């Protein structure tokens, strides 16, 4: 019984880890730089497809067979390809302000989905299958941990400061010598490459990816995770991912009529968060949990960003 439960929980946990990595990447773009990307899943799909193509076609060709190193290389391919895609989309699109960036990234996702459906080498509409199982729960959570650490650390670097300053006030940031276009571009490109990492982990865990992964609805799920959890907090993004993966899993045991309506529940959660806790559910948690060791509240709030 316990064994069954463990076996069952592996897949949801992997999905949670991957969604959390995606959310962390978007957190950097949305919460860090204040840019609304509605095509985050597209960069995830770019990373997933490229990593899968690498493992299936390129790795055997160059004689790389040791699973650990193939997976490591696939992660690098996924991150790099998504980074390049992010760069190509961002260079023209970041000249656009506000809603237009959201539209442009949305358009990119649609184009990518259509293109993938028409490339037979990666399965076309049937999806890309037959990918070796190289990733695991351990891989997912190790990468999740590393990504989390990296972004937390990034916030304290010069680049991270420039990104946050750009988000808070572009005119003031420029007046202090910050190249706001470069800051936004960096945030977008790094965030996209993190999505690519998630894609590479996904294809090697589920051994399958379909063009639907680039779909608008997938991008919305990631935006929801970041918004529900709390845009300004890394912990919030991971919490949001947990909620978005856990709610459908829990509803699995509910009657069909209730289960089918999961988007309605997410919508209700979003409305609740917007009304009662605009900084996301993480801020509610932080309020509820006893604040220990915070007598020096001033220095604590300085480190509180992570």
């Amino acid at each position, binding site marked *: 019984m316990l064994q069954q439960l463990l076996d069952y929980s592996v897949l949801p946990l992997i999905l949670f880890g991957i969604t959390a990595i995606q959310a962390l990447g978007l957190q950097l773009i949305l919460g860090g730089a204040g840019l609304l990307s509605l095509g985050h899943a597209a960069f995830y799909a770019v990373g997933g497809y490229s990593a899968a193509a690498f493992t299936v076609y390129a790795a055997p060709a160059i004689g790389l067979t040791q699973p650990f190193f193939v997976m490591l290389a696939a992660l690098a391919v996924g991150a790099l390809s998504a980074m390049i895609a992010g760069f190509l989309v961002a260079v023209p699109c970041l000249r656009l302000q506000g809603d237009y960036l959201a539209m442009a990234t949305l358009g990119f996702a649609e184009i990518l989905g259509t293109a993938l459906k028409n490339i037979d080498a990666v399965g076309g509409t049937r999806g890309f299958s037959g990918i070796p199982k190289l990733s695991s729960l351990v891989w997912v959570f190790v990468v999740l941990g590393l990504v989390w650490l990296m972004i937390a650390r990034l916030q304290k670097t010069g680049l991270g400061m420039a990104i946050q*300053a750009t988000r808070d006030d572009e005119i003031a*940031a420029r007046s202090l010598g*910050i190249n706001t276009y470069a800051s936004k571009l960096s945030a977008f490109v790094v965030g996209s490459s993190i999505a690519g990492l998630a894609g590479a982990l996904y294809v090697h865990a589920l051994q399958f990816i379909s063009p639907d992964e680039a779909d608008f609805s997938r991008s919305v799920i990631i935006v929801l995770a970041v918004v529900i959890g709390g845009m300004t907090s890394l912990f919030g993004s991971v919490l949001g991912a947990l909620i978005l993966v856990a709610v459908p899993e829990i509803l699995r045991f509910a009657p069909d009529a209730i289960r089918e309506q999961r988007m309605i529940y997410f919508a209700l959660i979003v409305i609740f968060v917007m009304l009662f806790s605009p900084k996301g559910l993480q801020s509610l948690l932080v309020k509820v949990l006893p604040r220990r060791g915070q007598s020096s509240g001033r220095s604590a709030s300085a480190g509180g960003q992570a």
Partner: protein
Amino acid sequence: MNQPQTQQESEKVLLRAENLTIRFGGLVAVQSFSLSVPAGRIVGLIGPNGAGKTTVFNLVTGVYNPDEGKVYLGESELTGRGAHVISRAGVARTFQNIRLFSGLTVLENVVAAQSWQRRGTSLASLLGLPSVSSAEAELRRRASEILSFVGLSEFAGWESTSLPYGLQRKLEIARALMTQPKVLLLDEPAAGMNPTEKVELAALVREIAGRFGIGILLIEHDMKFVMNLCSQITVLDHGEVISVGSPAAVQKDPKVIEAYLGAETPDSGTAAEGGR
């Protein structure tokens, strides 16, 4: 920098604006505006509301590009360069409507002002290399020094926007100083301050000019504040310069009196205090 007299440059003109003109549609917001700010001097820019004072700041700092005219810092021309390039050249400013980074603490607001100088170190600091972490500690130390210079040390860990209004203005000055400017543009720094705070601010501005040799261009509606601080004043009305000179001379200029009060004689010292 190949000239030998760099040591004696403290009296030279740092910032020079020549015949700046900008039109917004049919409106000429600023017309043929010229001004110079020498190192270590405090120059005032006054005029009734809507005269174009902040537009001049925006022209000098690259927020707007002038339709005509040029801006120089020392020998190098700044006209038409991006705002961040002009800032890196040594022109810092504060804003009339305070623009702090609300997501950052007081100390981080000051540290962020140096972020562009840390280019190329981001990867190394991501990995936490020791050389970089000592550089980061140095940066924080310098930011703390500037905070204590403007009198904000005790608020270092506060959320920047939770500061009282007057202190937010001081934080903007601290942030501008962190960029190590040659020229500092202050847009109504005393607005919203009580009389005690204004006296403190005047001392601070004087010290910035005196101790660091920074040239200061000051927009302010509080006439007492301006007249006490500035060595030279330019008066702007409807986008045009109507008077230039020492505080005493400008105060007596009939054109200035007319611009502020119609044709009557001003109650000296507080002519436009009610303006804000």
